[in-house]
């Protein structure tokens, strides 16, 4: 019967089967697609929690698909590292699903809602599959599942620019994925295996091979494209700006995080830390790119007039933080980097959800038009303020925790020069968020807002409640930081090789 040892596959297969049946059962009533999505993501989250508990108590889990022993068959592996990511992704997706219902009914025409939720679940399945797999080609297959469904989801945006954003995302995404599959081919060619653990055992003696080195370069380029690491970020602002609000929130909170996870997984567990640190000092390049991403992302965000685009550029900067921590590569910085995957998902998720609620009710996306919004949508704007404080890195918010770990890590590695960069970027973040917070609370109503009825009008309960919930979590985990920190520290230790 279905027992505990089948948990790893259930995490993936439940949303997959739900995605398959959604187009059929979704026709009965327009809410059924949503209900199925909610149920599937909730079950997936529950199983992920069970998995991580078991991993923290009994050590890593390996699941053999088809009963074939790896490396002959495909293997699923759960460690504290990917267990954490599984939980984060599935948790955020539940919250966004709860949020999605009304927003999607407005954005997508009724006959297509079942197909939308089917793709939504496929996107989720793809992300979870990427995280849990221990086989490098299986990784590619799931990357493609999430990417393909992502393209269609993005194209559902309200304006026609969404189509062009989606098309460019498709072209760049395909280039990225092709580089990844090429890297896989190069590795297979010299090792004869596709299993990640087996690869990591066979690679060290081949570190001098040009094939192994260029495979690494392909992985870096391919994943940087998927991850939107500066200077490969060009697709990201358009995609985040023009997608439907729900999709922006989902992508900002999950998909780049998962790509960051894959990058770390490849850098530190397929290749070993000594490869990226000493044999080919790629972390030095990544440090520079990360620093550039942090500064340039913040500066460009400062110049934006569209709130979604501003948040998108801010994401480019935040991705820089994740990579920065990983490339400093000591215990503290790696913990900070992993924490930031979790924390940024919370913060950016809630901020995009606020924007979605605002768009739902008023259609406003320009920062200029947000003046006086605090009176119109008090709860949503409170959530925005919390998210903004957290982005800045205010104490008692999650943003502070990860930045603290990053700074400690930089100091311990004698890389003090990153401290001013972190501070400068926090300052810039404070500037571009504070001008909005000031506008929404302390300014006269904009013309556009004045044209609407003046009494407070929040978005529907489901949207407002989930948004507030997520932003409150930014504070809860900012104060009770020890819960995620414990897992992140265990994961960081694992990544750095014991």
């Amino acid at each position, binding site marked *: *019967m*279905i027992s505990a040892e*089948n948990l790893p*596959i259930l995490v993936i*297969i439940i949303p*997959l*089967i739900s995605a*398959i*049946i959604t*187009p*059929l059962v979704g026709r009965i009533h327009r809410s059924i697609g949503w209900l199925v999505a909610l149920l599937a993501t909730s079950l997936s989250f529950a199983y992920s929690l069970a998995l991580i508990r078991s991993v923290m108590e009994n050590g890593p889990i390996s*699941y*053999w*698909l*088809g*009963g074939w022993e790896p490396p002959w068959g495909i293997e699923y592996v759960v460690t504290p590292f990917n267990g954490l990511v599984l939980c984060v992704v599935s948790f955020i997706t539940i919250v966004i699903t709860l949020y999605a219902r009304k927003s999607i009914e407005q954005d997508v025409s009724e006959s297509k809602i079942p197909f939308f939720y089917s793709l939504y679940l496929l996107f989720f399945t793809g992300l979870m599959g990427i995280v849990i797999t221990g086989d490098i080609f299986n990784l590619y297959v799931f990357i493609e599942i999430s990417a393909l469904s992502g393209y269609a989801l993005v194209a559902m945006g309200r304006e026609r620019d969404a189509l062009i954003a989606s098309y460019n995302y498709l072209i760049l995404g395909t280039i990225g994925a092709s580089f990844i599959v090429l890297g896989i081919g190069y590795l297979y060619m010299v090792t004869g295996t596709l299993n990640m653990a087996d690869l990591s055992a066979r690679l060290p003696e081949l570190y001098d091979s040009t094939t192994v080195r260029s495979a690494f370069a392909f992985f870096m380029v391919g994943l940087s494209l998927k991850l939107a690491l500066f200077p490969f970020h060009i697709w990201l602002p358009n995609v985040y700006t023009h997608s439907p609000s729900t999709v922006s929130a989902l992508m900002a909170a999950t998909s780049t995080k998962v790509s960051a996870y894959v990058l770390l997984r490849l850098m530190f567990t397929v290749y070993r830390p000594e490869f990226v640190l000493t044999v080919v000092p790629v972390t030095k390049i990544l440090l520079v790119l990360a620093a550039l991403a942090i500064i340039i992302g913040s500066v460009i965000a400062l110049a934006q007039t569209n709130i979604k685009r501003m948040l998108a550029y801010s994401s480019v900067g935040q991705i820089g933080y994740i990579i920065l921590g990983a490339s400093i590569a000591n215990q503290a910085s790696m913990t900070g980097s992993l924490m930031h995957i979790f924390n940024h998902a919370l913060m950016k998720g809630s901020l995009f959800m606020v924007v979605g609620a605002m768009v739902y009710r008023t259609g406003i996306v320009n920062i200029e038009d947000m003046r006086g919004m605090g009176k119109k949508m008090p709860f949503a704007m409170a959530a925005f303020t919390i998210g903004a404080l957290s982005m800045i890195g205010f104490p008692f918010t999650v943003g502070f925790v990860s930045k603290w770990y990053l700074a400690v890590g930089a100091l311990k590695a004698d890389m003090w020069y990153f401290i001013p960069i972190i501070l400068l970027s926090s300052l810039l973040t404070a500037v571009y968020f504070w001008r909005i917070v000031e506008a929404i609370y302390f300014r006269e109503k904009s013309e556009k807002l004045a044209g609407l009825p003046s009494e407070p009008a929040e978005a529907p309960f489901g949207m407002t409640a989930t948004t507030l919930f997520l932003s409150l979590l930014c504070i809860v985990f900012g104060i009770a930081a020890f819960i995620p920190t414990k897992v992140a520290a265990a994961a960081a230790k694992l990544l750095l090789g014991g």
Partner: protein
Amino acid sequence: MKEHIVIRTVSRLLIPFIQLFALYVIAHGDISPGGGFQGGVIIGASVILYVISFGMEDGRRRVSESISDFMNSAGVFLFAGIGVLCILAGGAYLEYTAFAGKAAHGEHAEHALHLASHLGIYGIEIGVGITVAAVMMTIFFETARHEDD
């Protein structure tokens, strides 16, 4: 393309054979090149040929939207479902030999295991075939120009 009698006659003659070949390809995937995917593509292609020679309206009358939508899901569902059945039979996901049950340890153990494995492989090949055929049709129906375009 209302007057193209040659095209219509030829495709009317060809389509049954194409589909028969497709079924052959699916059924013989284990001993010769081909399998569910290739067979499914050929079935899809036969429907596309029909639509090209007889027009969209006629094609949709043969394979209606609800049928192709149902088949899209049915194939993958069959595939994923076989995996779940393997779990229920006590094996890992997609471990077909779990179907052999107690026979796996009897005197004809190898035979039973091969039978179970064949059963699973045929099942998933058919699943792949259904989905691929249906999706190929769906994509063509949606992509091609409609009469009123």
